[in-house]
């Protein structure tokens, strides 16, 4: 006999009525939801092999226990297929991790989305997009997994827009912000392997992040040329003074150009770290740093991030087009760190 589901129950006339109830009760992100019936919720739990009372995460600052039952209900609302549930669970474990520090990105005026990078075999099994139209639209897994996590933040953790979630602007990635790494075509070490997992493991990395910034370089056929362009764009971006994590997503053409020169991710990070520094004088002139310009400020340089390792390099995006992007993290690395969790099946 399966364990009882303890959530409060409501009666709807039909699917359409259930959708309206979800809007009326404030359970939705603004889009219609799938009605969370017991059978659908149980299918989610079974796919992740979790008991309903299992604690997926505990957000200490909010004193909120996130149970598998609530994650499953929100995954149904979001439109997930049951086999997506292990990825949703791993991502929720990530945002409840003290290193991710929910207190900031779950509430801040800075408007963080939860960027999720999926690695390992599960990305291909679930058809999580790593190619064309990387950030959407078009792929159910990408759009519903991230939506489920945001609904957990809203419905379980209380991050209601305008109340606990005080994002000044927010961004479209706050609806869903899920990508996979293009491991099939990438010449580089995958993100999860760089972060301590084995290639055959599946993992999701959660990062509190601003929106993606696309850059264009159709001119250069060298690694240095392409990366010089993105470094120049990145140098003044995001909160500049915050020193957060940055994610650099290199799509097909740029990936090939950079790899053809023999550059690995470590060398890319080091190059970007060195080429994205600002002088104290510039930061003061542009009102990003307080105080008057002192002697030596033209030469004194401040890095964009604290260390080269605060730049994550991801191979993903369409094969055609001289475009890639960078994503400024939210806040600072000391306010919220990228966290990688294994997808358990």
């Amino acid at each position, binding site marked *: 006999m399966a364990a009882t589901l303890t*959530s409060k129950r409501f009666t709807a006339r039909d699917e359409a009525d259930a959708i309206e109830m979800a809007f009326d009760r404030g359970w939705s992100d603004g889009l219609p939801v799938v009605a969370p019936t017991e059978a659908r919720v149980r299918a989610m739990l079974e796919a992740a092999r979790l008991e309903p009372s299992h604690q997926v995460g505990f957000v200490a600052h909010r004193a909120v226990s996130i149970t598998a039952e609530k994650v499953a209900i929100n995954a149904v609302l979001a439109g997930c297929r049951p086999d997506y549930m292990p990825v949703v669970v791993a991502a929720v474990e990530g945002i409840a991790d003290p290193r991710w520090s929910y207190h900031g990105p779950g509430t801040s005026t800075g408007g963080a989305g939860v960027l999720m990078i999926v690695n390992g075999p599960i990305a291909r099994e679930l058809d999580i997009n790593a190619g064309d139209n990387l950030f959407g639209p078009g792929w159910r897994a990408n759009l519903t997994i991230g939506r489920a996590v945001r609904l957990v933040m809203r419905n379980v953790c209380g991050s209601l827009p305008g109340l606990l979630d005080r994002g000044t602007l927010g961004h479209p990635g706050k609806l869903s912000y899920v990508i996979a790494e293009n491991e099939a075509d990438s010449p580089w070490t995958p993100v999860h392997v760089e972060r301590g997992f084995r290639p055959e493991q599946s993992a999701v990395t959660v990062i509190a992040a601003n929106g993606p910034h696309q850059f264009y370089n159709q001119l250069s056929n060298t690694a240095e040329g392409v990366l010089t362009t993105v470094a120049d764009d990145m140098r003044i971006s995001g909160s500049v003074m915050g020193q957060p994590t940055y994610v650099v997503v290199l799509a097909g053409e740029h990936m090939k150009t950079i790899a053809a020169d023999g550059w690995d991710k470590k060398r890319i990070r080091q190059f970007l770290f060195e080429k994205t520094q600002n002088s104290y004088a510039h930061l003061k002139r542009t009102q990003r740093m307080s105080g008057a310009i002192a002697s030596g400020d033209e030469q004194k340089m401040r890095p964009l991030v604290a260390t080269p390792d605060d730049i994550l390099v991801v191979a993903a995006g369409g094969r055609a087009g001289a475009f890639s992007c960078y994503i400024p993290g939210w806040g*600072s690395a000391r306010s919220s760190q990228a966290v990688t969790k294994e997808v358990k099946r």
Partner: protein
Amino acid sequence: MMEILDPTTEAAATQTIAYVPRPTALQGKRVALIQNTKYNSDRLLERIGNILKAEYGVSEWRMYNKHNASVPAHTEIIEEVKKSADVMVAGIGD
């Protein structure tokens, strides 16, 4: 007809928060000001502290700095506030 499940958190009956009773007056009370380190938050709180002293008769105020604005107050300052203050002022302003 169909039955659907509530996706929101319902507080468990066993979960309770023990609130300290609110003081009926501030006269003679010690005040802790929790500073989140954003620009000018120290000046704003200092002003509040001085008003509480001049107009409400609090005996003293002390300011405590968080590590940064995006993280909760750390254990050390919470423990210190518990020992040395009767009321506190905490908030967030951008």
